[in-house]
């Protein structure tokens, strides 16, 4: 006969396979049915509400829905942009419900707080029972208890009860159950348990949510995120840490195809007048000092200075190049042959001229119309300060001079873009995350399985009553239980053959 059928016939398996939509008795309804006085009644109803799974499910769905809205409506833009895109009336509604900063508005935060309250109330309500089941395993039981279990099987074998008891105990401990054996006048009582810590999993996961949100709250209140740029050689004061940060060097690595491979900043921390720390940071490798982190975020060309400029000097009449020199920023450069000296004094990346103030300024930070101002001192004492335009070499003509000057090229001065962040809550978030992972793994993969066995009989024959249950994952447990029964049967068969 097929051994699997045995179990179905012998065991009291009431599981109706077709009745799949039948709800499993919900743990929600268990307990808390006592009718107390008014206040405690209200409190217990409140606790029921705040600890209910239905609330949890509703909150998950609401949070998911709200988050979707937040990804559809661009967050944190300027009001004028929303008015342009959606119209004034719609923006009014957006503003009313805080939809333009959805993830930080009052109602989204309230949902998160409610989720916290919900998970903590659930721990508060259920943990005592969990704890009791952990410390008080049901080691003492009666035959009737075993026979009333949903999974219950009776096996008989031709062995003494003492030997059978030993065999089953070793079989169960081989399957990693923790076995307790009790012998009494009417037989042997075996209790086996494993995976009891799986029951703690859900509680850990619930507590972890609060810890993660707490970490986020601390980070949000006490931390900050800033962005700033530093030029090479420049030193900036970091008020939050009361120290200085200096950019020693910035450089870029390229792939062969010209794409940017990585970019680096050599940063030095100067605290109390002393250089305390130097590090080459790059994307994915920040510098941390006194809890403040400096991240390599971006880079760019300065709009108001350059490192070097290449200037050609031509004779007006012949258009012959008589000088080709590379000027360093604000350094004087002598040209003895022509009896003059040149000095680059200023730079703008997008030249513009303010008539009223008669001032040169840059229209943007883009290098659209770069121009360099050069101070040219001639041997006769006369000084000119012309602007040389990279895009328009012939624009500026110095009538007094027999030479003309051309800006052939320049090396931009790079700045580094640094993200500066301090987050005192981040480690709390990591602790919460670790707890969440362990809670999930325990709750989803470790199940509390218990087997109760009573062996009783007279000398040569023994009757075995086996029963078991689990807190979750019933189908797998039934499979495992079936295997266990088969093993026990095989053991009794072996004996028969001898």
């Amino acid at each position: 006969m097929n051994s699997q059928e045995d179990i179905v016939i012998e065991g009291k398996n009431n599981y109706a396979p077709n009745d799949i939509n039948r709800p499993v008795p919900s743990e929600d309804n268990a307990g808390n049915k006592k009718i107390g006085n008014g206040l405690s009644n209200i409190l217990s109803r409140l606790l029921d509400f705040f600890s209910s799974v239905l609330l949890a499910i509703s909150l998950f769905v609401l949070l998911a829905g709200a988050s979707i809205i937040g990804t559809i409506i661009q967050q944190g833009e300027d009001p004028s942009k929303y008015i342009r895109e959606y119209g004034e009336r719609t923006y009014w509604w957006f503003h009313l419900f805080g939809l333009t900063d959805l993830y930080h508005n009052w109602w989204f935060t309230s949902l998160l707080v409610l989720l916290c309250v919900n998970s903590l109330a659930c721990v508060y309500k259920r943990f005592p029972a969990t704890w009791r089941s952990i410390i008080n395993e049901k080691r003492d039981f009666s035959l009737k208890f075993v026979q009333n279990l949903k999974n219950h099987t009776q096996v008989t074998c031709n062995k003494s009860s003492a030997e059978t008891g030993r065999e089953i105990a070793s079989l169960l401990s081989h399957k990693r159950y923790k076995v307790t054996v009790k012998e009494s006048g009417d037989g042997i009582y075996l209790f086996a348990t494993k995976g009891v810590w799986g029951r703690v999993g859900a509680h850990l996961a619930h507590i972890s949510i609060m810890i993660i949100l707490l970490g986020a709250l601390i980070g949000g209140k006490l931390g900050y995120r800033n962005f700033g740029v530093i030029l090479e050689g420049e030193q900036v004061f970091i008020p939050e840490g009361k120290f200085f940060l200096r950019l020693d060097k910035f450089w870029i690595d390229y792939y062969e195809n010209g794409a940017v491979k990585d970019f680096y900043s050599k940063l030095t921390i100067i605290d109390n007048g002393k250089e305390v720390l130097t590090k080459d940071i790059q994307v994915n490798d920040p510098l941390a000092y006194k809890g403040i982190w400096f991240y390599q975020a971006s880079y760019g060309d300065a709009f108001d200075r350059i490192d070097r400029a290449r200037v050609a000097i031509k004779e007006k009449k012949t258009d012959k190049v008589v000088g080709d020199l590379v000027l360093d920023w604000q350094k004087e450069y002598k040209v003895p042959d022509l009896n003059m000296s040149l000095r680059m004094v200023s730079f703008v990346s997008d030249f513009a001229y303010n008539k009223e103030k008669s001032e040169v300024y840059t229209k943007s930070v883009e290098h659209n119309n770069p121009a360099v101002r050069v101070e040219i001192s001639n041997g006769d004492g006369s000084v000119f300060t012309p602007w040389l335009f990279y895009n328009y070499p012939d624009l500026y003509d110095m009538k007094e001079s027999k030479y003309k000057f051309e800006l052939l090229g320049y090396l931009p001065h790079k700045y580094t873009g640094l993200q500066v962040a301090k987050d005192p809550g981040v480690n709390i978030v990591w602790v919460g995350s670790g707890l969440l992972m362990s809670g999930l793994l325990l709750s989803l993969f470790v199940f509390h399985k218990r087997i109760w066995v009573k062996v009783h009989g007279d000398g040569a024959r023994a009757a075995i009553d086996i029963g078991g249950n689990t807190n979750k994952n019933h189908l797998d447990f039934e499979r495992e239980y079936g295997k266990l029964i088969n093993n026990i049967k095989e053991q009794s068969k072996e004996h028969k053959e001898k």
Partner: protein
Amino acid sequence: MNSFFLFDITFWLYFIAAILYIVYMVTNRVGELVPAGHPDGGSLRSKAVGQIATILTASGWVANTFALVARALEAKHAPYANLFESMMLMAWGIIIGYLILEYIYKIKIIGVFVVSLGFLTIAIASLLPFRYQTVEPLNPALQSNWLLIHVLVTFLGYAAFAIAFGLSIMYLLKERAEKKGLKYSFFMRFPDCIRLDELSYKSIAFGFPFLTFGIISGAIWANYAWGGYWSWDPKETWSLIVWFIYAAYLHARMTRGWRGRRTAIFSVVGFISVIFLYWGVSFILPGLHAYA
């Protein structure tokens, strides 16, 4: 060997395997006494077809593995740094998940839905424009060991949800056939509803910690690369949305005792949001994850 060649081999092996699983379903006449999908069911011929399908699937998975390894050697970084590569990883995850399911539960008919999902993933990837398929050097933000862990874990999670989706679709079809009393429908050859429901739940229970760790590892990485563990970037937000949906599913099933139709629909909705998280966010919503 060239990774494209190996991806092609994988494509064809999964393709033939998926067809053979369908042939297996069609030819596998189920007797009164043998439950649907049971290894003892069906004729010898259909059994042979089923065996070949499994062998091809397993070989396809080996080819898929080699293709990923070859890609890693060619690119000199984790072989899942662009859309095409990540789809290869997803197919790899779906197929290994299926093979494990078949090994444990011996129900080949699931292959009709799950192996074809794996094939579909590869097929869509192969339809991508060629410039999406080639090896690209890593941009600075991706140059981290977290790429190896974060993407792998996340996609194993996606794969588990894909399997759960396939099983839930099977559940819905079977339940409908049962309700309508369609005795001779192919859908009646599917495993018991209770089994489909349970396996779908298991896939989600397996995928959920992967998704969670995917999010956490992403947060750790972001904390190193972007200067903060959470920025409400669309990818981050959608991963959280998917997390909320499956968290609701698990609570509904484990504690409220939801079973069957309701959870199957939940699982389908969950997977649709996974697809949006994967494709929709990359193509529709701009953000920091723009490269994936």
